[in-house]
């Protein structure tokens, strides 16, 4: 698993987003074991402490859990996974709306735009 990072925002936040995306998209399956901290750090060429920090936060959000001495796993909690998808979708939508508004589209126009695109 190799992630690419930008220099211009905190790496641990980028990593959290990337792992969330990988979980939501099914790239990491529920119950699957996560690569070790060192491995993640090595492959993405980032600091192991940064990886650790990101994993702590994901664990705090109950998206991953630690099995004693045996590494970290993706949650199997279906409710959690559903919430995660909603959270990511809502972030994407927010980003989209902000950009569309910057382009000068009204809410009505945005809706029309989406409908036309879907046909």
């Amino acid at each position: 698993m190799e992630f690419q990072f930008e220099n211009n925002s905190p790496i641990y936040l980028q990593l959290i987003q990337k792992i969330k995306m990988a979980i939501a998209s099914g790239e990491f399956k529920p119950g699957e074991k996560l690569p070790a901290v060192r491995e993640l750090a090595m492959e993405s060429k980032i600091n192991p402490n940064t990886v650790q920090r990101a994993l702590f936060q994901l664990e705090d959000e109950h998206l991953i859990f630690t099995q004693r001495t045996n590494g970290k796993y993706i949650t199997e909690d279906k409710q959690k996974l559903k919430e995660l998808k909603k959270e990511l979708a809502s972030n994407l939508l927010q980003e989209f709306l902000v950009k569309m508004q910057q382009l000068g589209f009204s809410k009505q126009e945005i809706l029309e735009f989406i409908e036309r695109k879907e046909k």
Partner: protein
Amino acid sequence: MSAIITCEHLNKDYGNKKILKDVNVTIEKGRIIGLLGPNGSGKTTLIKLINGLLVPTSGNVLVLGSKPGVESKKIISYLPERTYLPDNETIEQIIQYFSDFYFNFHVEKAYELLEKLKINPKDKLKTLSKGNKEKVQLALVMSRDADVYILDEPIGGVDPVARDYILSLILDNFKEEATLIISTHLIADIEKILDEVIFIHEGKIVLQSSADELRMQYKGSIENAFKEVFKNV
């Protein structure tokens, strides 16, 4: 977290030129720290003081609570800015020197790293390109089982592909409890592997911060923060 290196009111003059001015820095265990500053800002002088190659004009450098000396040299693996290896010898011979000099040097590891770097240990050092010489030196330094690694401009002479290689080599060969100090002015290339940054300018420490906090604070890269900070000093 506990301090491994402490500088207290550290000053270094060369004649009447002040190179380091009242430097106070604490470096904690288990971190990767970028010592960042323009050319001539005092990075190498600070590193030499930590390694006991220079003596402070006033103030103190302490490595695990003691002044640099025989004990600190055992636990610090140091990559100097300039090469000091005998050019006319083969890498094999140089590996032998390292293993004679340092009790914590792992010969097998050195050979393993050279193989990964596709460098033939039977070659004489002088037949290698500048970039490959740098890689050999770094491989030797990283083959010591040290508590602290201090790398003075480890990526200066190599192309971007080799830089990636070198960063992997560093990350791959550094124990979790170990501390790594990298000095460079090529910030963009290494900033992703840093925990912490220290900015130095005209012999003064202008900032010490967590890398990600700094990105948050300046809403951009470390390199960007560096430019912002240095605009105002």
